């Protein structure tokens, strides 16, 4: 499954203004990192991210999914096609997630 790393447009603008545009594609050395990941074919992608990363899940299926932490740390609403849910992982650790509509869908987010 494809995992896309991206910067917000605002950050891109900042980069350009500072004349760092030539540095694209950027390295992963940003503190406030964002990661977007697709939920596709009834699967979450396993993720490894740095502490402080905001992970955004995007549902790419025709069927709704939810992103629910096994420990109850977070719980999305039902995400229709192309709808998103974000959570910022501040603390290092291993986080287990599942979809409450399809509980066979499980994955792990490792925060370093």
């Amino acid at each position: 499954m494809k995992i896309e790393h991206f910067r917000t447009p605002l950050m891109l603008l900042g980069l350009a203004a500072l004349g760092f545009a030539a540095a694209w594609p950027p390295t992963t050395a940003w503190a406030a990192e964002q990661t977007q990941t697709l939920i596709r074919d009834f699967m979450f992608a396993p993720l490894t991210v740095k502490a402080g990363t905001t992970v955004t899940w995007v549902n790419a299926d025709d069927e709704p999914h939810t992103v629910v932490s096994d420990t109850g740390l977070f719980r999305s609403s039902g995400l229709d096609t192309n709808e998103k849910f974000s959570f910022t992982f501040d603390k290092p650790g291993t986080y287990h997630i599942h979809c409450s509509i399809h509980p066979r869908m499980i994955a792990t987010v490792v925060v370093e």
Partner: protein
Amino acid sequence: MSDDKLLQSRRDALKCMAYGGAGTLFVLAGGVFTPVNLATAGEYGKDGTKPGKPLFVQISDTHIGFNKEANPDVDGSLTQTIALVNRMAEQPALIIHTGDITHLSKPAEFDHAQQLLSGLRTTELHTVPGEHDTTDPTVTEYFSRFGKASNNKGYYSFDHAGVHFIALINVLEFKAGGLGTLGPDQLAWVADDLKRRSSSTPIVVFAHMPLWTIYEPWGWGTGDADQLMSQLRRFGSVTVLNGHIHQIVQKVEGNMTFHTARSTSYPQPAPGDGSGPGPLKVAADLLPKMLGITSVSVQLHPRALTLADTALA
């Protein structure tokens, strides 16, 4: 039951599987289905018995709010379904909705579903939620509308025409990687509820997710259903009705008949076909043949329940 008879009843049950399409009437007598073609169903009863009185109609998986390619008009499909029920010569005493009333548990979806369902001539509606009805963060949208019958627990029972109905909820307490769950509280409540019933009382149990394991990799089953079945086994006639899988699957085990209804919204793939149980896209002319309802009639002398599946086209 002798081995020969057992084999015969298994054969009959398997034959039923092949009869899954529209227009087949399933006569349930002594826990064994006998398929009767609807075209000749009028002749049923030459031995002095009469076809049963319509007891209830099961509507399932209306998924109001769904708008994808598999069926861009789920409102229209439900409206057609309601018209089909309203056209029945004799109206059923009650309607059972086995969940996934809405697609995304949104207030507007629930409101719209209720508005559409109010078009039914039969006004007595009993519901259980599906997992699509409980995805709102606080899990309150379903219960604020349909929670009264169960005091917001999701499970309740009632009696009609000598039949005891038990409504169960198996879409909460989902554990990661698991099947549906009834939970110890609900199982204890069922035990208490059944204690007072004689074994000759026909029992109808309904819940959203199948109460037997149809396909574990897709979560099509209920993990602790065995504890429910052991309580039901002493009864002479048990009918277990579910939705969730948007297609007809049935099995007969002793006096217990298990049946899942079609959806009124969109079909789903056969177990294991594809990456998961998502909406199945089919040709437009095929769609109404894959949507529909289950109707159940009761015949009291001799006591028997009859199941019939009817497609929209």
